[in-house]
């Protein structure tokens, strides 16, 4: 479990014309929080996640995890990618134990946990399959299992269900809720889907477009455990209306500054 603190984090890409992707982002995530970063595609929310993961450096500001500066990518921050990013030449089992193996964990210490995580995501019978033999949803479940096996202090998820069809996506959301309610890991979840953000997160951060900034943070007080049945409650709809209004005003702001 981890606490994450971002102070005035900015990111500028220096090209022919410098692009400012992130502008003075402040964000505090407490241990065990589930935070959704919600914003339009290409608004820079993935950049923020990449900084947390250590894939990219912030141009300005400080990014801390448990009080220490975020360094290179590592198993303490498990990343779930949009397209799963499994190694196609490894079987499901080999993909899941890749992390512990790289970290030099003795086989006896990770095998049971790997088996347990495969069972959690319902893929015990597919341990010997290659990613090419799996559906998109199954691949993403492997992507989640291989990260959970490492007992990360934080889960960083970059539109992990964005490429899935609506039904699979709902099943994956329920799966993630179940897993998270059991493990209570800190989660940062990037999405452009309002329903998904409300359903999963304890707090939704609405991001403005180019340069991305965190507009407003909306705590979601829906009781847990949640399920997809919550999608149709009046409370849910109220949150949705509030967030949509927020996104619209953020969009207008971006338009007027661009003009």
């Amino acid at each position: 479990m981890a606490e994450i603190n971002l102070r005035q984090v900015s990111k500028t890409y220096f090209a022919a014309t410098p692009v400012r992707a992130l502008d003075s982002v402040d964000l505090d995530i407490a241990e065990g929080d589930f935070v959704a970063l919600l914003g339009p595609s290409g608004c820079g929310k993935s950049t923020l996640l990449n900084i947390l993961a250590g894939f990219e450096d912030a141009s300005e500001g400080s990014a801390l995890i448990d009080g220490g500066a975020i360094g290179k990518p590592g198993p303490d921050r498990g990343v779930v990618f949009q397209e799963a990013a499994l190694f196609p030449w490894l079987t499901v089992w080999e993909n899941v134990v890749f992390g512990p193996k790289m970290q030099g964990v003795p086989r006896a210490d990770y095998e049971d946990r790997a088996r347990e995580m495969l069972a959690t995501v319902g893929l015990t019978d597919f341990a010997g399959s290659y990613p090419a033999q799996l559906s998109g949803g199954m691949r993403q479940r492997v992507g989640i299992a291989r990260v959970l096996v490492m007992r990360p202090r934080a889960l960083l998820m970059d539109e992990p269900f964005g490429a899935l069809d609506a039904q699979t996506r709902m099943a994956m959301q329920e799966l993630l809720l179940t897993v998270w309610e059991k493990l209570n890991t800190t989660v940062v979840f990037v999405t452009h889907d309002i329903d998904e953000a409300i359903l999963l997160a304890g707090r939704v951060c609405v991001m403005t477009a180019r340069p991305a900034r965190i507009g407003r943070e909306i705590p979601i007080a829906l009781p847990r455990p949640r399920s997809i049945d919550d999608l149709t409650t009046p409370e849910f709809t109220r949150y949705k209306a509030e967030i949509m209004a927020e996104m619209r005003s953020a969009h207008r702001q971006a338009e007027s500054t661009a003009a």
Partner: protein
Amino acid sequence: MSDTSVKQAAGRPAGLAAPGSRALGSTLPAIILSSNLGQLLLALILPVSVIAIWQLSGTNGSLFGGVLPTPDRVVAAWWTWAFGATGMGLNPYSGTWLANVVFSTQRVAQGFLVAILVGVPAGIWIGWSRLGAQVLDPTVQILRPIPITAWLPFSLAVFGISGFSAIFLIALGAFYPIVINTTQGARHVERNLVRAALMMGAGRFDILRRVVLPAALPAIFTGLRIGLGIGWTAVIVSEMIAVKSGLGYVLWDAYYVGRMDVVIADMVSIGVMGLLSDQLILLVERWALSWRLAGAR
């Protein structure tokens, strides 16, 4: 894809086609032609007719006034070359076929192995690291336009009349396609795969061995197949001039003494060896890249 359609077509009894179904590919000739036997027959039409015409237009076992022997003479020459008694003064080639095939194949194998051992790591380094590209790539690009045949005198001067001359040329010729294809493969590794490996705690060497190398493998195999073809070219050229054994040596020697039947039997032998070695690579490729085909199963 085409494989499954062949199976489906072959599996449906021709006489039981649904009435009125005259869809493309379900007529009797189409079914016969799309079966494995049919494919073989189609492939054989051209070579069989060429050989037949060649045979029938010869008189007294040769064409063009004795220059070109007919196929039956070539087969007879090959038979003596392959199974004749050795050490008979009358026919210096008798019984030496297998030994020469082994000489050439051995050289190709040795040179090819050197090309792989140098070309794959070099290609990974050029494709993966900017430093590697800056250090190695310009040299490779400058040397590459020099055809391996142009290296022959150099090779002779350095290694003399020996098998090393041939191995050097084979290794050099096979090196270029291997290094270039490996470079392409290593350069286009999906970024998120590398990030995923870093996130799971993989070190620099692990990334190269467990991510970049397997990701580049399909491209590497393309390079291996092209490289092996060039390896056979190189072995024949160098044996014609720089070595006193092997299929290339026999080819040139037989030409000098006017044994065109042996020349042609030799050419066919080279072709068959090239085909067999390519099939061997394909077999290894299918095994090594089985994860790619997994979805189609």
